């Protein structure tokens, strides 16, 4: 009936094929000569009008009108098709012919009797005669040939696929058949053969992907029209992949309802992802990531990230490694991604159970397409701009010396006297030590004033990053494959921050038998990241006084005595420290599907994931860090005979840390699904399944001293004891570090069911339920049934008969869903949990009492006797529409999430022996709307302009809170959860100008509005707004002119407020020579500039201020840092990227013997509009992180 047409290499296929065709035709002609088909006419007239009736009924009617009898086997007639017939006074012969035209059997008339028989071989041959062989070519709207297009004959199972020059051949096609051309991402095209033997078909790409036919939830692939839950999807091709950005960064502003915040401009650091706002007061608010149906586990065991409300990460050593290890999808090559879908409401996520409370991001990877081998190679090179002093608005040497001069002239008071550098050092030598003359002093000061050391130039670079990716895919009708290999080398702007990695991926999908299909994926990746240990170049460059020199005049490194009175040079520190992280991961997944009877399927999905993380960091003996921490004297200061050497606990060698982690996890999912269509109107689908997950983390971490990097990476032995003043002391460093083993096992098992019912494609009803259990320690032992359930309705209005599809409104549907879940926080238990000390704690608390040898146990968590389930309910309303003949596609949704009895962390008095306790207390409402639309204002053959826009607003309101701490510190940090205020609402001190007499900031601490300052700090504070933006919007605009296209992406956030980075240290200490200041301070109050609105320099003599309602005194400069004067709007409009690409013309590509060749260039973060108070800094990282800089990328893409 149909032929597979794939081009075998090296075989002159065409001739052989034609020869075979000729042979067959000859045979047929011979048979045709003996064929007899006839029917006599009996002159009877029939009038009949029926629609969609059984054949038997027609027979009865003809018999009534003509008197002819019918003889047939009832069994045979069961195969009969229904008949549509409209006869007016026709002969019985004609009537019968019409009746049987569409039937699988034939008839014979004998003596007024109609005998019905099975259609014989002759009849079949006769039909063959009207069959032809059709060959054709498929092209796109630009005239380019399209390989991999599925071609099928309407109404007949089976298909073929166009080859790599876009052509196909179908044999045995009925002359009147209709050919159907389909492909993912392309419009479905139907063409009538009409006897033509050669057809050229144009298959256009889809007007918009919002018209997406199906949505993958990770468990199921649902038609968009029957998807009740709230989702949004983006194709990888719509994202700008410059080879540097992480997947999360690419997604910023692309998915409606997903807010992504960058916390640092460093390469490879994690981003904060929130789906529809924050819905938990404790615990992780990150969504879960799912790749091809498999939930991804983090490479390192869970540890709550210390991300303060101000967005500042306070890292410990393992956080530092974690940041560069990446998240659970770091192993995935972005080029292998096909599309990304976010599941937002309960109806969409319920099937994932409790874990999905923060939303689910589902990634589907590319699969092979049936068709010839397709080879794709892409390469990109990127570079970043360096951060420089212009952007940071910091003082130059001259300005900094002036500031020091003011300190000296005014005689401001400092507590410490570590001033042998900078202007203060010169003054010290001149006036107190009297080691230099006035001339020498003046010369030294003028040298300082002109030093202007450019720390950014010394510590940063303009790096070149490379990214190569090769993929090979293809397949036959039954089996397809996709494999890729990628290499990535990313260099950060900070010298020494590099990342290099390989990814490999291979997937095969095979229809082994008609009922059994199997797909398997195997991927592996390796990544090495070099970063910093104990040094932060950005922090140093942006804070350090520019009067210091990095090099001496002879080119050697210039050392100075730092605040710890140890000899310091940043370049020396960088050269002698290191932090290397290697991540090796391997994933395997196998997915088997078996169709027992039509509609009833079983699926089994097994995956195994192994990640090995190896982090090591070191500092050699030449670093200031080792001198300060262990040795207590500068490198090389003492010889072995010196007393200082003998007194040192670590006279030789540095520090070496290792942190190894292995994660092995598997998951196995088995499900049975059944779907059935009744009466062509009722569609039922049901799925039940069971899922087991197990993940085990093992790890080893240790610190070893005495490391000699430059001497064969050997280790020196620590002295057993130290000698000072004739007293010998056992060296406690020999026992200070204890190895730590991690062994965590998490098992979970879940049962789930989901079902849907669709009536006539118009009404869709859907419900899901899931229950999970785990091996978590300290859970409610008597409660196991903890289901998550959700359901929803959808009404596809456009499918109603009365709906008049018009030009301006072509599609319309509404949906509503509801979900409910109960959750128990994993960190709280109703019982007292105790643990063995040592694991995860400091070395000082051993496993046994070092004095008595008795076993020790320590408190892990206090019991919370009143522990209740957290309850969350959510509701979603959605509207999808398309206007102007599908030119504008849009959707609108409104949601409301209500959380009750939420577990929140309560800061409790230290008198309880703990600082915080998790309790059920909060109630929170999240409401919001999301609008997304895409439209194509202009679409011509040569010019195309498409726009996609999305907007979301989230209103987060706290309805009730449990008891909470109410101090001004909580209020300014946004932690004061006042009923009616949003979650991150914060307060500030009322700035009342600068005291012209002293230069100190004035804070208005008067209490207002009758509030009692004893219980409510807001009595003397002012409400400023919220820290999170309440309105975010993404805009993408794409233009295409002929083969040239331009893509752009913008991100807008409105409504957030932030504190600016402090001008002066909160501790009110006198500025010292180790720090630089913002140029804003230039206009500060001074005894000669008393009218300034910027406070003067602080010093330790400034009296503290009594906080109203308390007995506590606080520093006025700290209050100033949290005052209304320091609050700015964080609203910003940023262009995330602009890029152009050009596809080479058909002629040229043919000459180059490739299918497609594409070159492009782009720029990331080209510009942003935000409050001028940020002075060019990125508001997302304004509180101190390394800003993101512009990145330029060139890329080349070749398809063979």
């Amino acid at each position, binding site marked *: 009936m149909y032929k597979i047409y794939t081009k075998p290499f090296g075989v002159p296929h065409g001739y052989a094929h034609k020869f075979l065709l000729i042979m067959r035709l000859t045979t047929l002609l011979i048979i045709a000569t003996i064929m007899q088909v006839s029917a006599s006419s009996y002159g009877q007239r029939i009038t009949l009008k029926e629609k969609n009736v059984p054949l038997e009924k027609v027979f009865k009617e003809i018999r009534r009108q003509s008197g002819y009898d019918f003889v047939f086997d009832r069994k045979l007639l069961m195969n009969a098709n229904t008949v549509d017939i409209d006869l007016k006074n026709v002969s019985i012969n004609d009537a019968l012919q019409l009746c049987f035209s569409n039937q699988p059997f034939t008839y014979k008339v004998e003596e007024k009797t109609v005998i019905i028989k099975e259609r014989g071989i002759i009849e079949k041959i006769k039909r063959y005669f009207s069959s032809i062989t059709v060959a054709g070519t498929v092209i796109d709207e630009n005239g380019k040939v399209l390989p991999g297009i599925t071609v099928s004959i309407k109404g007949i199972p089976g298909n073929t696929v166009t080859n790599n020059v876009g052509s196909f051949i179908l044999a045995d096609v009925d002359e009147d058949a209709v050919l159907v051309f389909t492909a993912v991402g392309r419009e479905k095209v139907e063409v009538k053969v009409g006897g033509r033997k050669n057809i050229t078909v144009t298959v256009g790409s889809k007007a918009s992907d919002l018209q997406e036919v199906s949505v993958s939830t990770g468990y199921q692939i649902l038609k968009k029209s029957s998807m009740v839950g709230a989702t949004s999807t983006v194709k990888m091709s719509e994202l700008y992949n410059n080879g540097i950005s992480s997947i999360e960064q690419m997604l910023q502003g692309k998915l409606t309802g997903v807010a992504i915040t960058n916390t640092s401009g460093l390469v490879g650091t994690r981003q904060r992802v929130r789906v529809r706002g924050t819905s938990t007061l404790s615990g992780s608010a990150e969504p879960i990531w799912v790749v091809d149906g498999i939930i991804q586990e983090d490479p390192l065991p869970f540890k709550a990230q210390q991300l303060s409300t101000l967005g500042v990460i306070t890292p410990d050593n393992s956080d530092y490694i974690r940041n560069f290890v990446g998240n659970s999808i770091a192993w995935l090559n972005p080029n292998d991604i096909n599309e990304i879908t976010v599941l937002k409401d309960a109806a969409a996520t319920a099937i994932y159970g409790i874990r999905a409370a923060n939303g689910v991001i589902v990634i589907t990877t590319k699969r092979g397409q049936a068709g010839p081998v397709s080879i794709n190679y892409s390469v990109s090179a990127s570079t970043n701009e360096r951060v420089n002093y212009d952007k940071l608005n910091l003082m130059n040497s001259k300005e900094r010396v002036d500031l020091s001069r003011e300190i000296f002239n005014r005689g401001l008071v400092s507590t410490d006297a570590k001033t042998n550098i900078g202007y203060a050092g010169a003054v010290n030598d001149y006036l107190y030590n009297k080691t230099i003359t006035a001339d020498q002093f003046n010369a030294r000061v003028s040298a300082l004033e002109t030093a202007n050391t450019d720390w950014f130039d010394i510590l940063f670079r303009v790096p070149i990053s490379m990214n190569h990716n090769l993929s090979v895919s293809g397949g036959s009708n039954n089996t397809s494959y996709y494999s890729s290999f990628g290499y990535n080398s990313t260099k950060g702007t900070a010298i020494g921050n590099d990342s290099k990695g390989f990814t490999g991926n291979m997937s095969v999908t095979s229809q082994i038998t008609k009922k059994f299909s199997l797909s398997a994926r195997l991927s592996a990746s390796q990544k090495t990241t070099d970063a910093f240990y104990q040094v932060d170049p950005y922090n140093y460059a942006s804070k350090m006084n520019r009067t210091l020199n990095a090099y001496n005049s002879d080119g050697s490194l210039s050392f100075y005595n730092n605040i710890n009175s140890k000899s310091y040079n940043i370049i020396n520190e960088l050269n002698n420290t290191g932090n290397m992280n290697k991540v090796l991961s391997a994933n395997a997944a196998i997915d088997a599907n078996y169709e027992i009877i039509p509609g009833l399927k079983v699926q089994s999905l097994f995956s195994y994931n192994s990640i090995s993380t190896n982090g090591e960091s070191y500092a050699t003996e030449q670093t200031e860090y080792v001198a300060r921490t262990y040795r207590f004297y500068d490198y090389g200061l003492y010889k072995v005979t010196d007393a200082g050497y003998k007194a040192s606990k670590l006279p030789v060698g540095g520090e070496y840390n290792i942190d190894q982690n292995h994660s092995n996890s598997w998951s196995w999912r088995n499900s049975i699904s059944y779907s059935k269509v009744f009466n062509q109107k009722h569609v039922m689908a049901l799925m039940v399944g069971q899922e087991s997950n197990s993940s085990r983390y093992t790890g080893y971490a240790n610190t070893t001293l005495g490391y000699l990097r430059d001497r064969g990476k050997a280790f020196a032995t620590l002295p057993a004891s130290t000698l000072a003043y004739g007293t010998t*002391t056992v060296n406690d460093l020999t026992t200070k570090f204890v190895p730590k083993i991690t062994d965590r096992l998490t098992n979970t098992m879940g049962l789930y069911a989901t079902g849907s019912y669709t009536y006539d494609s118009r009404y869709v009803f859907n419900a899901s339920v899931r229950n999970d259990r785990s091996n978590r320690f300290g859970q409610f032992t008597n409660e196991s049934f903890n289901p998550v359930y959700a359901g929803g309705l959808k009404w596809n209005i456009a499918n109603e008969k009365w709906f008049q599809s018009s030009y301006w409104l072509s599609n319309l549907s509404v949906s509503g869903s509801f979900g409910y879940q109960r959750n128990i926080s994993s960190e709280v238990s109703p019982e007292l949990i105790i*643990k063995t000390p040592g694991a995860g704690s400091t070395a000082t608390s051993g496993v046994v009492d070092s004095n008595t040898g008795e076993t020790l146990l*320590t408190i892990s968590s206090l019991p919370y006797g009143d522990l209740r389930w957290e309850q969350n309910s959510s509701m979603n309303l959605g509207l999808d529409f398309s206007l102007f003949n599908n030119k504008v596609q849009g959707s609108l949704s409104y949601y409301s999430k209500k959380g009750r009895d939420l577990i929140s962390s309560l800061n409790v008095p*230290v008198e309880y022996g703990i600082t915080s306790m998790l309790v059920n207390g909060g109630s929170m409402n999240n409401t919001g709307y999301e609008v997304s639309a895409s439209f194509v204002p202009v679409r011509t053959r040569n010019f195309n302009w498409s726009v996609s826009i999305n907007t979301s607003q989230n209103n987060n309101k706290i309805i009730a809170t449990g008891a909470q701490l109410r101090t001004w510190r909580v209020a300014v940090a946004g932690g004061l959860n006042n009923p009616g205020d949003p979650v991150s609402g914060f307060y500030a001190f009322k700035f009342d100008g600068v005291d012209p007499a002293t230069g100190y900031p004035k804070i208005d601490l008067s209490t207002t509005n009758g509030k009692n300052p004893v219980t409510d700090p807001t009595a003397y504070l002012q409400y400023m707004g919220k820290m999170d933006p309440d309105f975010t919007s993404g805009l993408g605009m794409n233009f295409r002119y002929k083969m040239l296209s331009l893509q752009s992406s913008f991100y807008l956030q409105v409504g957030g407020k932030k504190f600016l980075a402090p001008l002066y240290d909160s501790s009110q200490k006198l500025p010292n020579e180790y720090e630089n200041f913002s140029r804003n301070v230039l206009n500060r109050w001074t005894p000669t500039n008393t009218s300034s609105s910027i406070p003067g320099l602080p010093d330790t003599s400034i009296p503290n201020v009594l906080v109203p309602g308390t*007995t506590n005194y606080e520093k006025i400069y700290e209050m100033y840092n949290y005052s209304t004067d320091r609050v700015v709007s964080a609203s910003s409009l940023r262009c995330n990227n602009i890029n152009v690409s050009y596809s080479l013309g058909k002629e040229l590509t043919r000459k180059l013997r490739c299918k497609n060749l594409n070159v492009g260039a782009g720029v990331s973060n080209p510009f942003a509009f935000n409050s001028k108070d940020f002075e060019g800094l990125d508001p997302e990282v304004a509180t101190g992180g390394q800003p993101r800089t512009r990145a330029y990328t060139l890329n080349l893409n070749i398809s063979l």
Partner: protein
Amino acid sequence: MNTKKFIIYSFLLLCTVLCSCKKFLAEYSQDEIRPTTSTDLAALMYSDAYPYNMLFDTFDLLTDDLLCNGPAKTSQGTNVANYETALLSGMAMFKFDPMMFEASQIIPIGADVYTAYYNKIKGCNVVMDNLVNVSGSEADKNAILGQCLFLRAFYYLKLVTIYGQPYSGVGVNPETSLGVPLVLSSQVKDGGLSRSSLKAVYDQIEVDLLKATDLLNANFVPPTTFRIGAPTANALLSRFYLFRGLNSDWDKAIDYASRVLAVKSTLTQLNTFFNGANFANQGVYLSSNPEVLWTYGNSTTTATIGYFPTLSIGYNPPYAVSASLTNLYDRGNGAGTTYEGDLRYKAYFTVYINGGSFLYRPAKAVPNATYGGKGFRVAELYLNRAEAYAKRFVQTGNLADGNAALADLNYLRQSRFDTRTTAYKPVIITDAAELFKFCQDERRRELCLEDGDRWVDIKRWGLTVSHSFIGTDGTTTQHVLPAGSPLYAVPIPYTAFLNNPGLVQNPR
């Protein structure tokens, strides 16, 4: 595969999965357990209720036992770095700055014990609250209860003597004067905690200690000096009554001291530390020393005190033992002679040498000692009893009390003096006031720089302290803590106020 077979296989698979379910979902944790036996709670008590390795209070900078040497200048004219850091870390306390424990100050290690003691009190409360939930014999549980009650009382006595005014101080009304918040259960509640009165705290300590003594007496004999038995509880009661200092308390202080001394009265003879002409200091808490009742902590506790840095040769350390304390000791014929007088001068301090040998810091816990650094010693009980007798002598003029006091003091001194060649000469004093003064000095000589006794004694006896501080710039300033100063009640560290709106700072 036909349908039937498939169903059978699936069924078998499902069975296997469901059968192993229980094992698969069995609770697992690397290191966590639920306490089920009294042994578990005992292990918890050793780590979380006993002081074990916690850092201890060091308020010696507030006393007259230390002096300030100021910054040490190198030949280049810069300050010796680690000395400067140490000087700054002790500055606020040494200058009696009322803001000494605010965020703007460097708070030396050991001066922020408020949180640390309450952390241990939590441990006591958790163990006691969970005794009813675990299995174990009544005797075991009572032994645990007795130890926890003792420890809680011990910590509260520490807290109230640091952060409260002296109970019997001049002008102090224990009914209204601020004590510390009393937390007597592991239950964490909403809202702030307010400070109980001095009386309420002392009353609670007394009740707990009396009960602890009974329970320990009946149920527990400590296997080592690292655990508490009834004698230690009696010793703390003796200390408690002496510290409370009501007129009715002297008899009780004498009574409880005598109870201990009835079972354990031996003192360590410092003479025995001589090995030929060499004096090998072993510290006072070596567990084989006969006078140790209970010991805790370790030697690093004193080694890590921020204001006592590692010595740099040729420079004066920023803080060292004051002349007034140094001069209290009878040096006999001098170092290296056959009669060195009071050996405590030798045994209780380390020295620094810079144009002469000076006392630097305490050496009561020897570095590298694997035994405790602090604790209860028999010596203190002789001193407690002597002081109570002396106090009675002052009040009643009964000479028998005076003689009893002298007997105790002479007995103690005899064990401290060099008696290799010279016999100890007992002290004889008949004037009540003079005897009390001698009692005070002897207490200072014996208990100085050990467990904060001097600071409590200054408060109880209403003494004035004068300090002369030399800053980093070399300028000298004078600072006086007058008798009955509001700072007798040390300010509560600012960290305690962050989370407790109900807390009130001491007047300052």
